[in-house]
């Protein structure tokens, strides 16, 4: 069992939790992920590591309440426990030897982009960060990015905060102005990562993306998370989750991520929250 030692609502649908998991905290690196399982009947859900404190033995996760399990997790309080929390899984972001990088984060993906930006910085790179949100009310981690980046460009789709527009706009401008990067790392929704890759391709800028396919075990034993990269089948949980974005088959990823959509909708509609019913039973 793993204790939730801190909980903070970052906005209406995005929650930060710090989980006591000393073994995970000892080894965690930017770019890696964990898998949690809320209780005995819970599913295994992957979340990228948003931070860690090796001394305290805690790992920070930031997640959006999008479906049954993330809503159930979001309903837990400080001091509550979750059943399973395993990691760090996947390969860390390769940060060595890069002098100038641009980290692009979209929405809740910014939570994952932050530790990678920090890791680039610590490895000695000059770091530009471009983050994008739908609107002002869902902006997260602005101060943290300010502290981590040499240059921060904040975008909102509706122009309510920062610059008006999508993350690809400033990226395009920078590249057109002759700016060079050893690497662009994009983390966010699949369409955003796809368009970042389209933006960088004509300039021949090496671009990595952090993929989010459906996972079960996260240790390489099922292939549920398989993606096609450069015509080859890769398992995102062990070979990734970061891959060369110019080689990724995004259409396939989008399609495969919809495998259980009907069932997910049905669960959201009909599922009586076990935690809620357990709570009611206790009150009785």
């Amino acid at each position, binding site marked *: 069992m793993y204790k939730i030692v801190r909980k903070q609502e970052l906005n209406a649908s995005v929650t930060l939790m710090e989980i006591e998991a000393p073994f995970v905290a000892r080894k965690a690196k930017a770019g890696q992920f964990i898998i949690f399982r809320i209780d005995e009947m819970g599913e295994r859900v992957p979340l990228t590591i948003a931070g860690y404190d090796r001394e305290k033995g805690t790992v920070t996760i930031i997640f959006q309440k999008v479906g049954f399990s993330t809503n159930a997790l979001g309903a837990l309080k400080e001091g509550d426990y979750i059943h399973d929390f395993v990691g*760090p899984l996947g390969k860390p972001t390769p940060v060595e030897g890069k002098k100038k990088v641009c980290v692009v984060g979209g929405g809740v993906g910014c939570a994952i982009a932050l530790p990678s930006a920090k890791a680039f910085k610590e490895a000695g790179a000059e770091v530009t960060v471009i983050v994008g949100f739908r609107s002002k009310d869902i902006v997260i981690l602005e101060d943290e990015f300010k502290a981590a980046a040499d240059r921060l460009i904040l975008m909102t789709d509706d122009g309510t905060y920062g610059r008006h527009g999508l993350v690809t706009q400033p990226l395009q401008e920078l590249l057109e102005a002759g700016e060079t990067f050893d690497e662009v790392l994009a983390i966010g929704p699949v369409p955003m990562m796809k368009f970042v890759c389209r933006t960088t391709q004509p300039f021949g800028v090496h671009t990595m993306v952090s993929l989010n396919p459906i996972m*079960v075990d996260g240790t390489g034993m099922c292939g549920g998370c398989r993606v096609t990269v450069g015509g080859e*089948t890769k398992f995102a949980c062990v070979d990734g989750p970061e891959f060369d974005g110019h080689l990724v088959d995004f259409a396939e990823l989008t399609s495969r991520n919809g495998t259980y959509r009907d069932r997910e909708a049905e669960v959201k509609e009909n599922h009586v929250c076990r935690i809620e019913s357990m709570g009611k039973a206790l009150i009785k």
Partner: protein
Amino acid sequence: MANMTLTKTPMPEQEPQVRAHNFKEVALGYTAEMAMEEAGRCLNCKKPKCVEGCPVNVRIPEFIAKVHEGDFKAAYEIITSTNALPALSGRVCPQESQCESKCVRGIKGESVAIGRLERFVADWYRENVNAMPEKAVSNGIKVAVVGSGPAGLTCASDLAKKGYQVSIFEALHTAGGVLVYGIPEFRLPKAIVANEVRKLEAQGVEVMTNMVIGRVLTIDELFEMGYKAVFVGSGAGLPMFMNIPGESLKGVLSANEYLTRTNLMKAYTEEADTPVIKSKAVAVVGGGNVAMDAARCAMRLGAEHVYIVYRRGEAEMPARLEEQHHAKEEGIEFKTLCNPVEILGGEDGRVNGIKCVRMELGEPDASGRRRPIAIEGSEFVLDVDTVIMALGTSPNPLIRSTTPGLDTNRKGGLIVDENEMTTRTGVFAGGDAVTGAATVILAMGAGKKGAAAIDAYLKK
């Protein structure tokens, strides 16, 4: 006077039409009377061949004599002196190619039903006694076991009996390896596996789940933590695919994924959060036990048509005859001498068919099996919405890729010497991690050998 009946005492089973729609155990097991009657068929040979056929050398005639007398507790103690997991082996061993293949009664008629008797004894003990084993006197020496499948559980049990302080590191959230994620509930109820793990814990073995060795800790760190030897029983969990067009469509899964969702995550129950694909018609590609398990799960999950698609003939199938027989009884359709060439999908990206080519058998290949050759122009399409690839698995690369000096063979199996030691001093290995996908009982045998080798190594 021995019971000279030529056939085994039949074991009651759920009716095929009934069991094809539930996940309850198919075989119901002997009653005490049936077991005593069947035990009477054993001739108690002076030189029992059956024992040689058992990878963990269960003292078969001795335990069967006790069953015949009705002293089931004594029978249990004889079995468990060499076999830590009789409730499991009695269910999933291919006895027909092991102990029972050597039984003299099998020359004229059927061999003694050793597996069924072993299972009966283990079940009787669990239901009537279920005493937790005693903790041995500790010798204070720490040994780490990586993986809690049949190899790791057996190795840990044998080491604990000798007084070692054993920790098992398991990557998943439940201990048992293939016994919990692979073999379905209807062949091996998970409560039985859990009971075996509890017995191990009573012996003082520490079972740590959610510990992915290679990521959370490396083998080198285990030594730094004070473990004096490591046994790697991490299995062969890496699924193979065919690399044919359409394999990334929605509705194409490895058998490992399908079985993990169904068994480990309990997707067959209403209460589980993990979804499993709801199929009308399923093609399972492959002819091994895993293919049979996947097909039988698909039937139970409500599919109307389930096909086994296998490129060789029925006689060449690696699955146990009993499993093939059970599958057929439950309505699974066998498409043998068929090989998939493409998986077809609709605009929604979902599978809507599998294109196969008919095969004929040519000359035997290096493995001694007749090589299947495609018949030109014989392509046909099976209408299915799900394709499950059960082509086999190979050893997971995570440990070997994070442990310097750990050599593997061409197929990814860890190389071990005659003492089960890998190319790293103090690191031993056994089971599928060494051999590639094999059987539960061979893994148990390897775990046993590994424990003996570790004991010898640490006593040096």
